[in-house]
Structures are given as structure tokens and as C-alpha cells.
């Protein structure tokens, strides 16, 4: 029997690590990886929340949401990686700090 607060703590930590990754890294690939971590933290909360829900009908809802988030992650990664390839072909690096042409 896992206490709910432990799962909360785990999820929060994972999410914050993801945010730190997004903020600190300049490589586009690492930002995508950090996004994956954040998504996982959210998924964890969903599943835990549904499992601890008092009504039994809602117990499977968390996994359904997980499926939705999984498809979302898959699409996001597909598009993100194609952008990475595109960027690398054009600039020969993945440093997002140098992508500031939209500024003006």
C-alpha cells in the first residue's frame, strides 16, 4: 500500500527536473527529452489519481488518459524530431539561443 503523498512527491520531483531541463539546456534534443520527463510526471499523477478514486467506475479512467497522452507524446516527438532534423540541416547545430530571427 503506497501512500498517496509519496506518489505526489515523486511526480512533482520528476516534473521539476523536467522544467529544469527545459530551462537549462540549450540543445533542442535535450529540451525534447525534458518534455518527455514532464509528460511522464503528469501521467503518473493521472494513473495514481484514478487508482485512488473511491468509485470503481473511474478506476480505469487514468489509463485512458494515459493513452491519450501517449499519442500526444508520440505526435509531439515526431514533429519535434523532424524539426530537429530540419534545423540541423540548415544551421548545423542545435543551439536554440542562436534561433532568434523571429525577434524583429
Amino acid at each position, binding site marked *: 500500500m503506497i501512500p498517496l503523498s509519496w506518489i505526489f512527491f515523486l511526480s512533482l520531483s520528476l516534473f521539476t527536473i523536467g*522544467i529544469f531541463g*527545459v*530551462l537549462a539546456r*540549450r540543445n533542442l534534443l535535450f529540451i525534447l527529452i525534458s518534455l518527455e520527463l514532464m509528460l511522464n510526471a503528469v501521467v503518473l499523477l493521472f494513473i495514481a489519481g484514478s487508482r485512488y478514486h473511491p468509485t470503481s467506475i473511474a478506476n480505469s479512467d487514468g489509463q485512458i488518459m494515459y493513452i491519450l497522452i501517449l499519442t500526444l507524446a508520440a505526435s509531439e516527438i515526431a514533429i519535434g524530431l523532424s524539426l530537429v532534423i530540419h534545423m540541423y540541416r540548415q544551421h548545423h547545430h542545435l543551439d*536554440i*539561443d542562436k*534561433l*532568434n*530571427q*523571429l*525577434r524583429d
Partner: protein
Amino acid sequence: MTYYASLLSLIPLLPLFSALILLFSKPNKLTTALLAVGSISGAACISLFLNFVFWQQTDFVLTSNLGNWIKIAQLHINFSLYLDALSLVMITIITGVGALIHLYSIGFMYQDKDFKRYFTYLNLFVSAMLFLVLADNLLLLYLGWEGVGLCSYLLIGFWYQDRDNNLAANKAFLMTRIGDTAMALGLFLLFIELGTLNIQDLQVQALSVWSSSNNNMANLCCLLLLGGALGKSAQFPLQNWLPDAMAGPTPVSALIHAATMVTAGIYLIARNSQLFQMAPDVMYLIAFIGTITLLLGASAAMVQSDLKRILAYSTISQLGYMFLALGVGAGASAVFHLMTHAFFKALLFLSAGALIYSLHHEHNIFKMGGLLKKLPIVATSFAIGCAALASLPFTSGFFSKELILEQLIDSGHTNFWWAAVLGAFITAFYSARLFFVVFLGDSKQSPDKQPEKIMSLVLLLLCFFSLFGGIQPSGIQTLMPKLNASGLTTLQHWLPIVLPFIAISLAWWMFKTNLFGKTITVPALQYFHQLLKSGWAFDRIYQVIFVSPFKFLCQLNKSDIIDLHYRALEKISKLLHKKFSQFQNGKLRCYNASLIIFCVLAFAWFIKGALMS
């Protein structure tokens, strides 16, 4: 009556249309001259006809409405013309003298390359002047007032390639602007006080609203109107633009700066005589200013060497006479003197123009001399003009000036009478000096050409008017309340008649002993001579009192002290703009960071709110 009314509206419109046509087309010189002179002559014929119609009547009024101008709440201003005895005299002078001067200008300006421009301005001037005197409300009068000011500016600076002419034009414009501003304020105040700008209604309203005489508000209104009149008529504090205004072509000086425009101030006061009757203090001030001006102008005219400047100072002095007459309540004689002055001063200016034309633009009278035989027509007309100016008996100037002097006695202002007589003495002296120096004595320069025939014709016509222009239309007499005749003493009757002859004899003696052309050696006299020559040094006084302090203030305020605040505002917003625009740096990580910061702050706010409750 409608037939007359439409004729009346034609008078100012004819020159206006002619000016517009000249402005927007390129006719040759003959067409230009025909159009310009034709339109003015038409107007002159109409006004002569109206004179003929109303000759016997004293109490006639003719109005004509040309259209609506402004209609806001209480303010109803129409382009309405109003003709009574006073404006009839004025339009007769303006169109009559105007037509003659137009005719003369054909000869005088024929060689000028800007022939068309000249006539455009001149026609526009006549039209504006006619609107001024025919206006039935003060706003339309003000439109004409500014119109003549504009034309005066344009014509003084007609030969604009010369810097001095431009400066003279600027000076005239700015000096009159001071008066015009006062007048505009006066119009606002009158409208607030009396609720109308119609001149006739104003007189009636003034009587009922300001029931007691010498009301402060009445004094203030009249004072402001007087300010406008002083500027336009070159009276005492604002007189020094007129001598410089002689930079324009001579016919312009004759028309604008002697016969018509400068008399607008006299017209304004005569027109609003009932209003001014409500302010006796202002009336006294008018008389006082007139006296100062007439002495000041006459004394300055004694020592000038420039032909046209003598005439300009003489004009100032004669206008002083008219102001004096207005101030003592003798408006009719002021207008009468205005009329005769228009004739003989136009004659003098035009003869001077003919002289200048013949002598190849020579202005200095000491370089002329002995021209009596070489230019007989000019000499004759000049002599007649000078005689009228000096008010020798049986010339037109004699009648009008005598009338003014008589009215001064009648109204009981004996001290003003003495000043006016002294002025008359000086006037006679300088007119004689002018004539002697230019036409008698040794010949110094021979004319290279005779004046054009058309010019001589005009001179002869004006000679006629100057001699016999003393016949007064009966309408004028009713303009002003009659003064009680108190009778003159023998001295008062004969002194003004005899004095000019004494003055002329004196001038003759000084001319014979060759005192005029001599350089003065006594230092005190030399200083006085210089002072007079500069017109009592008013230019320098104004320079010290107004221009220099103003320049000093400008110097102080070089960095725009008041604007500093606004510039600081601009700088701060620029700084903030720079700071804030740094946030939009195109860096994804910065955008992310600001998002997270916002989240942090929002959570902090949430926690704080939860803890407080």
C-alpha cells in the same frame, strides 16, 4: 431699392473678381491693365452714381446681403454691406483715388516684369478696403482689415529681391499686428458684453447695456478697438512702421500708405462714434495721442532728406490731426480732412513718383533742385499739393484744417488748439522747404525722361480735386452730433490763416541763405537733428525696451526650460522601451523563464491568499 443694393454689392466684388482673374490667368500687359483699371473704374462709376442719387439725402441707409458666413448659436455673421453717408464718402475716396492711382500705375510700372502681380495685389487691396468700409458687422470689417494688412505687406515687399524691402514689410506687418491683436480682443469682448457684432446694433446696445457713461467695460472695449486703429493709422506708439513702408512702389505709397489704408483707423472710430461717446476718457486719450502724433510727425518731417520719408512723416502728422478731431468729438471734420488729405497726399505722392521716375530712382531731395522748368507739370502739381498740405487759403486742405481748428475751439480744448496751430506752422514750413529744395535753386541733375502722358493726366485730375475738393457732401454733417458754436476770437480766426505765410517766408529766407543743405556744426543741434531725423528715435527705444529684453529672454531659454519636462518624459519612455524590448530577444529560454517566473509568482500569490484566509 434692390437695384441700388445689387449695384452696391458690385462695388467691392468687381475688384475682387478682377484680382482673382489676374491671379489665375496669364494675360498680357494690355489686358491686365484694362482689366485692373476697368474694374476699379467701374466701381468708381457706381459709387459716383450712388453719390449722385443720395446727394440731397442726409438720412439714407442702403444694405445688401451677399450671403451667410457664420451661424453658430447667437453668432450670426453675414456678408452684408451697409451704406450710409460715412461709408459713401469712404467708397468714393477709395474707388475714385484708387482708379486714378491704378491709371497712373500703368505708366509707372509698365517696365516692371511683375506688372501682373502688382495689379493683382492692388485690386485685391481695393476690394479688401471696400469690404472694410462697407461691412455691416465688425467681423467682416476685421476681414477687410486683415485683407488690407496683407496687401500692404505684399506691396511694401513688392521688390522682394531686396532684403531691406522685406524687412520693411515685416516691420509694417508686425507693428500693425500688435494693434490688430488688441482689436481682435476688443471684438471678443464686445460680443461677450453686448451679444452682437453688427455695428448698428452695437451702438444701440451700448446705450442700453452700459447705461452710465464712463463705464469701465465701455472704456476697455473702446481702448482695445483704439489699439487696432492706432496700429493701422500709424499713431503715436505704433507709428514707426510707416516711414519704412515707403520701400514699396510709389503709387502703392500713395494709395495704401496715404489715401486709404491708414485712414481705416479713423473710419473705425468714426463708425463706432456712439460706442466711443460712452467712453469720454478714451476720447480724451484719442485727442491726446493725435496731438502727440501730429507734432511728432511734423517735426520729424522737417529734417528728412528722403523725398518719400518726408511725405510719410507728413502723413503721420495729418492722421494725427484726424485723430485729434475725432477725440474732441468732431468726427465730421475728421472725415472731411480724411477726404481732402486723400486727394492732396495722393497728388503729392504721385508727383514724387513722377519725379523719381524721371530722375532715375533718385530719392534724396538735396541731389535734386531747379526742376521747375524741366518738369513743369510735376512742379505745378507738387506746388498745388504742397499748398494744400500747408493749408494755404482756398485749397481743399485749408477748408478741412480750418474746420478742425474751429471745432477744437468750439469744444473748448484751447491747449489742443495751440498744439494744432503749432503743427500747422511746422507743416507749412516743411512743405515749403520740400518744394524749394526740389524745384528751385541750382540744377543739380537733369531728368533723363519726362513722365508718361498717362501719369501727367492723372496728376492734373488730382490737382483739380486738391484745389476744389473742399466741397462737402451734406451727408457728412449729420454723422456726428453738432457741437455748440462758441464763436472765435479774432486771433483764433486769423492766426491759422496767417501762420502758413510766415512759415513759408521763413523757409524762403532759410533757403536763400542756404541753411537747409548745410551740415550742422553745433553738437547739441546736431544731436537734435539726428534725433528728429530718426523720427524721435523710436526704433531705438523699441529696440531697447522690447527687442533686446526679448532676445535676452530667448538667450536664457535657449535650452527650452519648459520643454525639459516633456523631453524628460520622452527620454524615460524611450529608456523603458529599450528595457522592455530586451525581453523580446528571440531566445526561447528567456520566454520559458518568464513563463516559469509567472507561474512562481502566481503560486506565491495563491499561497499568500490561502494563508491570509
